[in-house]
Structure formats: C-alpha cells, structure tokens
C-alpha cells in the first residue's frame, strides 16, 4: 500500500481539495485550522491556475470565494467557529446566488472566542443556514482523516451538482490528528457552465444577484430554493449504522463523537450490553428516516454531542414523539473518553 500516507486532517482536506480541482482558496489564520491555510499557501500556487490569497478577514475571504465561484473556479475557504460566524454574510449570498463553494469549519469551543479545543457547538449554525434568510447549506460531518479527504472531494461535486454552498463540519481534533489516508480518484467536474460569468463576448450579458425587491419574485426564488433543497433531502442523506441489529439502546452521534461512541459501544458489548450507533454523515440533510425506522424496533435513544445539545432537536423531530431520548453532552472543548461515555450509557441502559 505505497499510496497510503500518514497525514493530518487539515492537510488531507487541502490535498483532497486540490486533487478535486479546487483552484481558488482564500483564508484567514485561526486555530485550529491554520495547517489547512498553510497547506494551501504551499501547494495551491503549484497547482496549474491555482490561486491562494491570505485575506484581510474571514469576510473578505468568503467574498473572494464568491467572486471566484461566479467566475467558474472550484473555490474553497476555511476557518474555525468564530471565523465561520463572520463568513455567514458570504454563505448567505452564495446560497441566494446559487453558487457552488466549499466552506470548512474545524469547530472549536465557544461561544465567543471560547477556546481552541475540539467542540461541536456549531451544529445549529451549520444546519440552519447560519446566516440570514431562508436557505440551507449541505453539511458533511467526517469522523476520520480518511473521511475528511473523501468528503472534501464529494463536497465539491455536491456544490456543483446543486449549485449550493457545502460545509465540511469537522472539529479541532480531526483537523490536528494524523491517520493513514488513501486519496480517492476525483470524478471529472460536472456542472452547468451557463451561469459562469466570463464576460459576455458577442452575446447577451448576464448578471448574478441576490437582491429581489419585488415580493412575489422574491417568494418565487425562495420556493425555487426550497424545491432544490427537497431534492437534496431525497438524494443526498448519508449515515452509518453500527451494531444496531439487536440493540436495545441506540446512540446517535456524529464526527469525532461517533468514534468515541463506537469505543464505548465495543466496551459495553464485551460485557453483554446491546448498544448500537447511528452516525449521521450528512447533518443537513439529516438522516431522519433511518432514525424513525429504527424507532419501530427500538425505543431508547441516547444522543451524544460535544455540545450542550443541538442535534438532539433533529433527533426528536425525526422521532415525532416516538421513543425515549436522553442526552450526554460535553461542551467547551472536552473530549470524553470512551470509558466516560460508556458510564453514561450504562446509567441510561439500566434505567
């Protein structure tokens, strides 16, 4: 396996992006994702037609991406929680303009400046659009460095397919840690070139804008976006199930938390407790159906998040009042051990 390399998550995103044809990156330094910006600085300039810009702010970076995307480039920006708050203006504009872009959020503890440790406190922001107005971004939640690489490539394809911003929602730990990675083969870029602004040539000029002053037209645009989102919801839901077959209690966790959950489940299975896991890979669209279906057989769920409880709302919406949902949360940058989580699960299991 000579093509397997040991690489940090932040670098893996950068490498996967470049391999997927990303040719425009703008970013601003913020821990814990600086390695990605540095990787792009080093390698984007070497890619043919590649542009790297260290922007003056997160806001400038995402707006540069807006320009590059409209001009036809596969474009990406990245940051961590506080910086993602600043980018929301541009993400809203990308969604309104129906422009493809990839935004990486390696989440850290919050609110405010918080800290630089791994956290999952930005779930609401990521899955509810994040900025102003009626829109959604596709949100992918990788749980390993391999998945960071794979999902980064997929993110560009999804962004093009739906002409929509796609967010990679990682955390400080998946970005910093190294794991063996085999980079997949990127698919050829497929997108409708018609929207790209390249200058009108001899033809009719085009414009891309988000301002729609007429209420009925704005409403029409809103519903048009919703119809697109419905298609995304139908086609793009991804999840993993782990030892759910004969389980009596289902853990629901995403990202690094889901890995910890697997560790806890293995311990508990060793001592005869029937526990399984549903791991959402897309956070929006949320894998509601599998949770609803599982509730036909199993009525106890424990949501584990490295936050005070955000995804649990989506789980409850999915369950439509069925089953019993409990919660174990560790916000603030705490990464509990599988043993700690196992203890919390046992309490719930024995109830």
């Amino acid at each position: 396996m000579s093509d397997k390399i040991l690489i940090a998550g932040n670098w893996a995103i950068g490498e996967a992006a470049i391999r997927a044809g990303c040719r425009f990156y703008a970013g601003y330094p913020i821990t814990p994702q600086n390695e990605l910006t540095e990787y792009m600085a080093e390698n984007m300039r070497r890619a043919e037609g590649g542009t790297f810009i260290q922007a003056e702010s997160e806001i400038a970076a995402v707006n540069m991406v807006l320009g590059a995307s409209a001009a036809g480039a596969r474009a990406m920006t990245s940051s961590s929680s506080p910086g993602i708050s600043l980018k929301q203006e541009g993400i809203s504009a990308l969604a309104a303009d129906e422009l493809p872009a990839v935004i990486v959020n390696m989440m850290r503890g919050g609110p405010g400046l918080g800290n630089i440790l791994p956290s999952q406190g930005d779930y609401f922001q990521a899955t509810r659009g994040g900025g102003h107005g009626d829109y959604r971004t596709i949100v992918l939640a990788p749980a390993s460095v391999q998945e960071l690489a794979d999902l980064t490539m997929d993110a560009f394809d999804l962004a093009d397919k739906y002409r929509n911003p796609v967010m990679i929602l990682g955390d400080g730990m998946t970005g910093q840690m190294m794991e063996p990675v085999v980079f997949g083969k990127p698919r050829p870029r497929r997108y409708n070139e018609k929207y790209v602004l390249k200058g009108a040539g001899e033809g009719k000029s085009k414009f891309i804008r988000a301002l729609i002053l007429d209420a009925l037209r704005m409403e029409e645009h809103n519903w048009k976006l919703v119809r697109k989102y419905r298609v995304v919801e139908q086609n793009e839901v991804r999840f993993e199930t782990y030892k759910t077959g004969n389980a009596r209690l289902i853990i629901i966790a995403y990202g690094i938390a889901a890995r910890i959950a697997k560790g806890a489940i293995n311990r508990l299975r060793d001592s005869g407790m029937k526990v399984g896991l549903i791991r959402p890979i897309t956070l929006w669209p949320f894998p509601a159906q599998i949770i609803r279906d599982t509730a036909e057989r199993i009525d106890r769920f424990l949501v584990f998040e490295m936050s005070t409880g955000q995804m649990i709302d989506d789980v409850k919406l999915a369950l439509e009042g069925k089953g019993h949902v409990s919660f174990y949360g560790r916000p603030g940058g705490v990464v509990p051990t599988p043993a700690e989580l196992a203890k919390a699960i046992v309490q719930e299991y024995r109830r």
Partner: protein
Amino acid sequence: MQIKTIFAGFGGQGVLMMGYSFAQAAMFEGFHVTYLPSYGVEVRGGTANCTVAVSNEEIASPVASQPDYLVVMNNPSLMSFQTRIAPGGAFFLNSSIITGRPNRSDVDIWGVPTAEIASELGNPRVQNVVMMGAYVKMTRIVSAESYLKSLKSILGTKKKAAMEINRKAFEAGFNYIE
C-alpha cells in the same frame, strides 16, 4: 490489541518526530493508527507532546487518558504525565537529564542516557532516535525494519549522511537496552 503511547519533552527534542516516525512505521505494518499532537497555545510554552494509538481495529479515540507507554524526554513532562500511565505499562526516561524517578511501583521503568549515547556517536541531535531504538525494542509493536523504513521516508532519499547517523543512533538505543 490497542496500545497508546505519549511522547513528551520540550520543544527541540524532536518529540513530535518520535511519535510520527513510530506511527508511520505502525501504518507500514498495516495497523490502524492515530497520531495526535498537542497544539495551539499549549505548544508555545516550550513543551511538546503527542499521542500515538496503534490497534488492529478502528481506533475510537486518539486521546490517551491512560497511556500504556510514556516516553519522557524531560523532568516537567514526567511530572505532568506520570500519574496517568496505565498499571502494567512502562516508562522510557531520558536518564541524561531526568533526575527524579516516577512515583509508581506498578509499571516498568527504562532509563536511557540519550545525551551520552548521542554524543558518543558525535551528534547530540539524534537523542530522540536513540530513545526510539530502546522503545521499539522493548515494546515490540513494530519491527526495527519498519521503523527504519519510516525514518528513511521522513529524512528523504537525498540525505544519505543523515540517515546513516540516525540508523546508528537507533541501533545504539536498540542495543543499549536489554
């Protein structure tokens, strides 16, 4: 099987390289592996550490609350981590500068005078690789061949002389410990 090791010392001792070279060797042998460095403000204070987990199945958490092995290159790191090591685990101490002894009786303790060995080889900068020789020998997680292959890939093909001194350092550490 899942084994977690923390490599700790101060900046400049090559602590992160120790962890990385070992993790890569484990990857070469087909293990699941995670390497997690300390980062951010933590590393600005002059101390550095990293955690390597090696397993034959998927690794749940790259963090080691109870490491099996602790490779310690300076006194402050010994103070920080000595209570966390799992019973039955082992310390690898840089006995050239670590004067104290761990206050644990339920673990093995191996001392390696890395500074003396490295200066005998004529290069004080290879102390970390001397330590890795002892570590690889006693833990038997990866073979010496895999470790040297990993080292070679890190040093690159251009630096033959660097590889030579590092190989000697590794062998010296490997042979020092019985």
